[in-house]
């Protein structure tokens, strides 16, 4: 078990990556063999994520190092005489392990939901191959300790995500969304690469720990920070850089929309890692905090108000997902803004923002799955042509209510627990922030009341079958259980996994650097 745990960081990337290339071969043996293989890959990957998380949280979120290429590496002397070891470093701390758990949860439920959802459709082999590739890329972004590798994994997620968004090539809207996302993800990736190049040119290294120890706050550093912040904010879907998100989440197959949200969260994680670990709260912390707060308020308000006027159920949930990215940004932004004056409240805000990442993944995943079920039953995404589903799909109705209440922050579901921390800490900085956040949550509840009224209430419609197959029901119930359990016992999860994750960003910079460079 110890050996497995030790190798978990690389296996989390390698297993889905190999799976992505093996799926087309296994697919030749038939649908059943392919689904069994994908299911096994998903289960094994999730088990390794669990092992890694248990190990990291067992040591209170302290970082662990995994080196590919030997601890010493092999050096190539530069003309300057500096010998840089050539090796790949994966560094996992509480925050990385926390993100790995989120990715594993969404990937696992998404894969199993897809087995039934994609049953009658063709192209499943490519679909699962892209899912595995996307998963490998997301894990890579979350576990790497190297800026260039971060860029490479960012690009892997971009390519796989574009494939999944434009997967239904017979739909013009799907192709258009895939093209738009491809262009904007490329733009984001280019600017991230430019920033990485600037840092490499300035300091001659790419390792995050090395760069963190070497940064001097020069103009080049500031430029690199601006490029990274904007590039990753685009990929996270922060307003006004969110324009691709409703198209992407809306046009991707329903289970993949949930995985795309996990992909956006990985970019958000990258942003937090860069702000806290790479730049280490040394450069204009207050200004950075307020930049995030402004982006957060725009994201929350525009996201939720745009959701209110949507009549396409997928786009409605997509805008709701955009608004939730704002709450995460608000928590971390408030944390940065008050880090000097009120560090205790800053830490609570951080806890809220980080906790909301997990809560949002579970709720929005559940809602996207339910939207897939609704579209499958009615054959339309238009809310104006739906109604009466509660007559024949009672369990789906209940699951929708759980997901909607949780996302809108209704107690006692998990969304309320994380939003409670964000509201309280935001209020301490400025009551205006808390008012916007609470008002937007109320509006979000109104958005889901609209969906419930339009899709589930009303007279029973002809031609609607019964409940969904068990294969789709089980992943939805699993996510609903996460929503309920995390909502009823938030203290336990905040203590065990959220606080170590927040600690890793807030206090863990020296330990992160020291583990690679020594002296930590």
């Amino acid at each position, binding site marked *: 078990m110890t050996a497995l745990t030790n190798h978990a960081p690389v296996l989390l990337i390698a297993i889905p990556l190999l799976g992505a290339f093996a799926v087309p071969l296994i697919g030749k043996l038939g649908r059943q063999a392919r689904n069994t293989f994908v299911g096994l890959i998903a289960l094994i990957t999730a088990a390794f994520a669990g092992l890694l998380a248990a190990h990291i949280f067992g040591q209170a979120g302290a970082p662990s190092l995994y080196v590919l290429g030997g601890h010493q590496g092999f050096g190539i002397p530069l003309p300057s005489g500096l010998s840089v070891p050539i090796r790949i470093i994966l560094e996992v701390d509480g925050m990385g392990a926390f993100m790995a758990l989120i990715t594993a949860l969404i990937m696992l439920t998404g894969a199993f939901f897809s087995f039934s959802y994609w049953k009658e459709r063709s192209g499943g082999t490519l679909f699962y191959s892209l899912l595995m590739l996307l998963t490998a890329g997301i894990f890579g972004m979350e576990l790497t300790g190297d800026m260039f590798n971060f860029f490479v994994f960012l690009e892997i997620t971009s390519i796989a995500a574009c494939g999944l968004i434009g997967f239904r090539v017979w739909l013009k809207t799907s192709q258009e969304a895939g093209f738009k996302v491809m262009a904007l993800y490329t733009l984001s990736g280019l600017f991230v690469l430019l920033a990485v190049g600037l840092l490499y040119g300035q300091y001659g290294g790419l390792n995050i720990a090395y760069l963190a120890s070497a940064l001097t706050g020069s103009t080049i550093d500031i430029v690199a920070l601006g490029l990274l912040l*904007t590039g990753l904010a*685009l990929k996270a879907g922060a307003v006004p*850089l969110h324009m691709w998100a409703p198209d992407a989440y809306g046009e991707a197959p329903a289970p993949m929309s949930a995985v795309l949200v996990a992909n956006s969260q990985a970019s958000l994680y990258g942003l937090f890692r860069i702000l806290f670990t790479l730049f280490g709260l040394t450069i204009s912390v207050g200004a950075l905090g307020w930049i995030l707060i402004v982006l957060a308020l725009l994201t929350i308000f525009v996201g939720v108000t745009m959701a209110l006027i949507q009549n396409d159920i997928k786009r409605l949930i997509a805008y709701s997902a955009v608004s939730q990215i704002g709450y995460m940004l608000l928590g971390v932004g408030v944390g940065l803004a008050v880090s000097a004056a009120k560090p205790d409240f800053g830490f609570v805000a951080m806890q809220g923002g980080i906790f909301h990442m997990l809560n949002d993944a579970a709720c929005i995943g559940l809602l996207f799955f339910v939207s897939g079920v609704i579209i499958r039953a009615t054959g339309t995404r238009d*809310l104006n042509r739906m109604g*009466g589903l509660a007559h024949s799909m009672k369990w789906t109705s209940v699951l929708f209510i759980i997901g909607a209440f949780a996302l809108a922050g209704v107690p*006692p579901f998990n969304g309320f627990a994380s939003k409670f921390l964000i509201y309280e800490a935001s209020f301490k900085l400025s009551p205006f922030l808390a008012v916007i956040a609470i008002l937007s949550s109320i509006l979000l509840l109104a958005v889901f009341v609209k969906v419930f009224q339009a899709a589930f209430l009303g007279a029973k*419609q002809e031609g609607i079958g019964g409940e969904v197959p068990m294969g789709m029901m089980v992943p939805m119930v699993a996510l609903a259980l996460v929503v309920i359990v995390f909502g*009823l016992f938030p203290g336990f999860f905040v203590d065990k996994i959220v606080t170590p994750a927040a600690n890793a960003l807030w206090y863990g910079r020296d330990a992160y650097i020291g583990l690679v460079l020594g002296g930590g």
Partner: protein
Amino acid sequence: MNGISSGFGAWNPIAWALLFIGILVVGFFVRSRGNAGYKRGTGQTKVFLSGNEEPDASAALHVRGRHLYWGMVEGLSGYYRRVKELHTGVLSDYAAWFVGVLAVVFVILVLVR
């Protein structure tokens, strides 16, 4: 273990759930003490539409998605007109937003350095 504290306030979902269940129990108790003269399928259960007969076509009575919050959306029409205009669907516009945000972030970071 169950609850969380922000240092400013506290939230305990188990206590909240117990209170919620308690209120439900009281509610059901009060209801059980009410008049049991309710007769299903009689005039008592009919929808009262200002004394008019209830139309039979129940499906036609369903309020569709686009009709919900009409008043609110109409009241915010100025806001929605501007926000919708920003969502042009044109890729170059989205790239322009990226460049604009990048410029603002640069200016802020350089100014407060």
